[in-house]
């Protein structure tokens, strides 16, 4: 079985994230990392291969030079190879263009299964997997809280407020997995060393047959016209409980007409 896992390199959410002058994410201001939510996708791919006893996992990312760190991190957890789509023209791409490029790269790899995270931790749109399934006509099994592959059939569980739903489909399929699928493993020292020797292929837009005019900030189908930092919340009143903390809270709530 051939598996492609989509991993995104993002600014660390623990840092003070901001925007550059051209309205795109400032990727220099904060250290980058493999999106934490994509670690669940990596973990599920590794488990699928471990269960099946064989299979080949390729990690795919689109992003500037530094995005190769996301591939190395994933490769230190396991898997076989990485593909990095990097091209200056991609800077500022919207979700539509991102999915166009990733779909072209996936098509080239001809996988049986594509596994994605539930959302990136920077854009947080949660749309790229559905767009890729749509573009490639793959069976779309999104937001799985559990995943099983038996032969040619993929089964997922998808949880919503109303119901827990079981969904099945045939390969080739695209699955996105939530953080409910189970903690991702930590890379072992051996894994980190091994990752350094795993092959990473670099692809440009030309390699994918995509015209640069179709991607990037200029080609985005939505435009940001204003960015403002939310003013910090006004400092409030903090009291220490001296046996009447609940009463004081009730006074505050009553003053705000919540009671």
């Amino acid at each position: 079985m051939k598996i492609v896992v989509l991993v995104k390199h993002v600014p660390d959410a623990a840092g003070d994230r901001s925007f550059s002058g051209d309205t795109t994410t400032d990727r220099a201001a904060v250290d980058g990392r493999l999106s934490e939510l994509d670690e669940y996708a990596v973990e599920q791919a590794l488990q699928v291969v471990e269960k099946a006893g064989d299979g080949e996992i390729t990690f795919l990312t689109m992003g500037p030079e530094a995005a190769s760190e996301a591939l190395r991190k994933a490769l230190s957890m396991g898997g076989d190879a990485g593909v990095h789509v990097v091209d200056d023209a991609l800077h500022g791409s919207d979700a539509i263009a991102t999915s166009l490029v990733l779909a072209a790269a996936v098509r080239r790899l001809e996988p049986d299964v594509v596994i994605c995270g539930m959302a990136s931790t920077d854009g947080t749109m949660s749309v790229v997997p559905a767009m890729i399934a749509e573009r490639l006509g793959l069976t779309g099994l999104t937001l799985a809280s559990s995943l099983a592959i038996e032969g040619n059939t993929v089964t997922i569980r998808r949880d919503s407020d109303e119901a827990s739903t079981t969904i099945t489909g045939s390969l080739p399929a695209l699955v996105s997995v939530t953080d409910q699928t189970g903690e991702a493993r930590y890379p072992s020292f051996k894994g980190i060393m091994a990752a350094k020797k795993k092959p990473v292929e670099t692809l440009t837009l030309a390699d994918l047959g995509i015209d640069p005019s179709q991607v990037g900030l200029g080609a985005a189908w939505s435009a940001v016209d204003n960015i403002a930092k939310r003013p910090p919340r006004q400092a409030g009143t903090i009291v220490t409980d001296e046996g009447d903390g609940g009463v004081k809270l009730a006074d505050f709530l009553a003053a705000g007409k919540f009671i």
Partner: protein
Amino acid sequence: MAEVLVIVDHVDGAVRKTTTELLTIARRLGEPAAVFFGAGVDAATETLGNYGATKIYVVDDAEIGQYLVAPKVDALVTIAQQASPAAILVTSTSEGKEIAARAAVRLDSGLITDAVDVDASGVATQSVFAASYVISSKVTHGTPIITVKPNAAAPEAAPTTPAVEKVAVSYGATSTTAQIVEVAPRAKSGRPELTEAAIVVSGGRGVGGPEGFSVVEALADSLNAAVGASRAATDAGWYPHAFQVGQTGKTVSPQLYMANGISGAIQHRAGMQTSKTIVAVNKDAEAPIFELADFGVVGDLFQIVPQLTEEVGKRKG
């Protein structure tokens, strides 16, 4: 005036409040037309008309319930091609975002997700980077497709009698591949909907275990509030994941948010930072949640919260 399509979020025809918000926003952009998937349109017509839907497109084919998401995209695209709408508005649920994503690809249109407001010129406001920035943006190509978060507008009635139109859809081979084989409905809590509630009372790791949540629930019930939880609490299995507030749970923006035994990690803040008033109870005076709190009490929640519940009961009489 061009139509603005609004996908109806409903359970067996009971229309969600978020849909009445979307219809209200749609009136700023054009003439609201509702898109109704599945059974129950008769039960929904009055509400949809009351909030200004002049038309209701209905698609109630078996495929809608048999396969995941994609048949709804076939239906939406069919309607959009026929109506040439000024915009398409969808509630920011996981399913709504997925319908929007696929429709954007098929309709060659720009997409904006998680808007917290949309003005008459189609400019959408988004709250990003864990709600630390507010950005405004606009779709510049194709039919603007915008997914909108709950509480983006106060629903305003504009009664009209909608024309109900059944739409014939032909479903693509690749739209009927993800088959729904089992649906296990969840038990209802009887409390207000988490994303719609005016007051949310949440518990975190400080609640100490599943039993600890009874203290949180009692307070919530005294205030007619919804119950929320941090990921530490849902991961530990103390409270169901459906009630998780934060980056990988729900975003809430109530009038009042009460965090009990929650430290205030960035991923939790992402889901509650835009609440009007924030109150925190935490035994650690250094907990970051206090940076957000309009009122905070440093102390043991097991002392403070039951006392508050009792006090609320007394004052309500």
